[in-house]
């Protein structure tokens, strides 16, 4: 056993940290915040290309596809570093890309992985539909095979990056008569294709997600991922990658709340001397540590050449519920100041706690709800009976 990074890994993490410190400007942060930390804004794209040029976007991919052939451990650590400074979400590099690496044809890998690794293209997740949320086997959007291309018709909802991304990572029905799980295919769709309409849905945290409508959209055959009608399994794999949840953003918020507690004097003493606040913050520190261990366990499993199973669900569940406890405790610590929004006079920590408090509501819902994660752990992990 060894619970520390090796000297070489630490050296690289130092470099990453130094890079982020010098490259992340307030303007870039503001842009990213405004689009909900999706990667796709002008400054964000410039930054990500520079970041990716070091191989840091996908360190554990093979060199031929733009990676460094590094460990998953280091990859996870770099994700954490970035998330701590600016919690950008990468669909192409961190969810679709690894799935293509696993299941894509050689041509597909050649065509897509290098641009993804270089940070030149971004995808949006296209799974959910109005009647298919937790149950993705209930999709109805259909892609009809026309020889060298498909024609797509249907509707997606809550597709978050769509308005800033380049391509849709789309789950679609290709054999409506087949059994569940045998009827779905994954494809990559240019979001600028004629027939695609994107309508914003505004969330209670202000950030945008979208409805995406497909009306006779043409998709070339070569954009099919892996095998036809095997898409459900690819989707599940991509979901597993999505569920490996870097906590950096919330860890940063936690650190800022701790700092605030130390600096804020109430009734003659710093908040950090109040036993109730000490207990709450110490508890969160403990929970963050526990999360850290189950987060890097995922990297460990991958580095062993295995595929994480229930362990991913555990970490996603634990991290997202912890995220809500962090924001709620932050609201407790800030007290009446907590409710003040960014831009208000007297707002504490630039209103971040209030905003993250609203946002954290969705963490336990998207990428598979907490109930779904618990089901997976019970059935797949513990092999409990389903009937």
């Amino acid at each position, binding site marked *: 056993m060894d619970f520390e990074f090796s000297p070489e890994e630490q050296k690289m993490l130092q470099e990453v940290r130094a890079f982020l410190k010098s490259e992340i400007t307030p303007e870039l942060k503001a842009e990213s915040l405004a689009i909900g930390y999706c990667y796709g804004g002008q400054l964000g794209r410039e930054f990500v290309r520079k970041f990716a040029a070091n191989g840091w976007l996908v360190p554990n991919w093979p060199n031929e596809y733009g990676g460094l052939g590094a460990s998953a451990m280091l990859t996870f650590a770099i994700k954490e570093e970035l998330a701590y400074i600016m919690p950008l979400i990468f669909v192409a590099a961190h969810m679709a890309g690894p799935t293509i690496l696993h299941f894509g044809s050689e041509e597909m890998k050649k065509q897509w992985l290098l641009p993804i690794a270089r940070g030149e293209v971004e995808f949006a997740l296209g799974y959910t539909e109005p009647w298919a*949320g937790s149950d993705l086997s209930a999709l109805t959007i259909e892609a009809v095979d026309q020889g060298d291309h498909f024609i797509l018709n249907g509707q997606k909802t809550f597709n978050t990056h769509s308005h800033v991304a380049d391509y849709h990572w789309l789950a679609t029905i290709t054999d409506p008569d087949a059994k569940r799980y045998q009827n779905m295919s994954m494809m990559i769709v240019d979001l600028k294709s004629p027939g695609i309409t994107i309508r914003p849905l505004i969330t209670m945290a202000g950030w945008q997600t979208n409805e995406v409508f497909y009306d006779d959209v043409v998709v070339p055959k070569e954009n099919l991922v892996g095998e036809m009608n095997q898409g459900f399994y690819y989707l599940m794999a991509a979901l597993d990658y999505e569920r490996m949840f870097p906590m950096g953003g919330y860890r940063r918020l936690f650190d800022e709340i701790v700092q605030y507690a130390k600096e804020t004097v109430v009734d003659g003493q710093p908040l950090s001397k109040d036993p109730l606040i000490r207990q709450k913050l110490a508890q969160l520190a403990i929970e963050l540590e526990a999360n850290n261990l189950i987060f890097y366990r995922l990297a460990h499993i991958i580095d062993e050449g295995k595929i994480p199973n229930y362990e991913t669900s555990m970490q996603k569940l634990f991290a997202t519920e912890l995220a809500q406890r962090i924001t*709620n405790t932050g609201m407790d610590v800030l*007290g009446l100041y907590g409710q003040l929004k960014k831009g208000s006079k007297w707002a504490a920590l630039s209103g971040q706690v209030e905003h993250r408090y609203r946002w954290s509501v969705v963490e336990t*819902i998207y990428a598979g709800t907490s109930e779904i994660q618990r089901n997976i752990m019970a059935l797949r992990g513990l092999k409990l009976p389903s009937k």
Partner: protein
Amino acid sequence: MNYDLNKTQTILKDEAHRFLAKECPSDFVREMAEDETGYSKELWQKMAELDWMGVLIPEQYDGIGGNFLDLTVLLSEMGYSCLPGPFFSCVVLGGLTILEAGSDSQKTDVLPALSRGEQILSLAWVEQDGTYVPGGIKLAAILNGEEYILNGTKLFVPYAHVADTFICVARTGQTLEDKNAGLTLFLVNAKQQGIHIETLITMAGDRQCEVIFEDVHVSKDNILGQLDQGWPVLKKVLQMSAVAKCAEMIGGAQRTMDMAIPYVKGREQFGRPVGAFQAIQHHCANMLTYADTIKFMTYQAAWRISEGLPFEKEASMCKAWGSESYRKLVALAHQVIGGMGFMEEYDLQLYFKQAKAAEQMLGDADFHRELVAKEIGL
């Protein structure tokens, strides 16, 4: 024992429910969150015509002489509709303080106008410490002949920007031997020279303000209650208002149930209503327990206030319990509704924000648990 509302209260509840369903739909709530004043004068007048402002005010001051339970019923319906505006700050915080501490002539001056909806009060209490303890009050009132001169800054003053009169909590004495002494309440004309108001931007869209008092002259006659003896009044008002806040939670909790339960019955995934999954059923059962316990904790405390019985312990229990339970109830509602409930256009978010605002106002759970600890002799 009897857990039921009486006949007049039931009628009041039904009337209020129907009135607010019509006058205060969720679109209106959203509109008011963006509105400059944050409330509708027209609706305010209609509420006054229904005698809502006068619910607690004795008939001799043109009120209807209702009791605290009547107020509870009304506030619960306001919570159900997320009614925006200064009702709470004016009728509850302001009204209760005057009723507690005002002289007959002060009551005659203020209460009839309040009852008619022509006078908006607010309580300027909290300062930079952000707490409801006496030590937090630094705003100084210095005697100068027949007047006091007020200097200092108040924060989180609800609807100060539309108030006609403030009740300002000021420090008039030192607190060496008795740390609860030395606070005095002043009636201050809100439009007076030297008062500067800036509206803060809050999560729930309710209006809370910074109010700066800069050499504000106030006559000695405007002292509410006794010089230096403001704290016992404030403490009582705090605890009654905390119960009143919980009354709003009763309604908010009910509305949240009314959204979530039909939703999980109707929403199908995996070939069945999501409400058929035990995970969801258990969440819903917990929500129901929160809703019922908030209600009865509040009714009990409100009943004790109405009956003139000691209520301090029950009031703090009720605010400590309600603050956390209502937030947890809404969180579970979010969980069982899923993605849809996270959309701005879905009304649940209004209650998410209402719950957090209500939790923090007038002492959060930690604050009231400490009071309960004292009440049970710890």
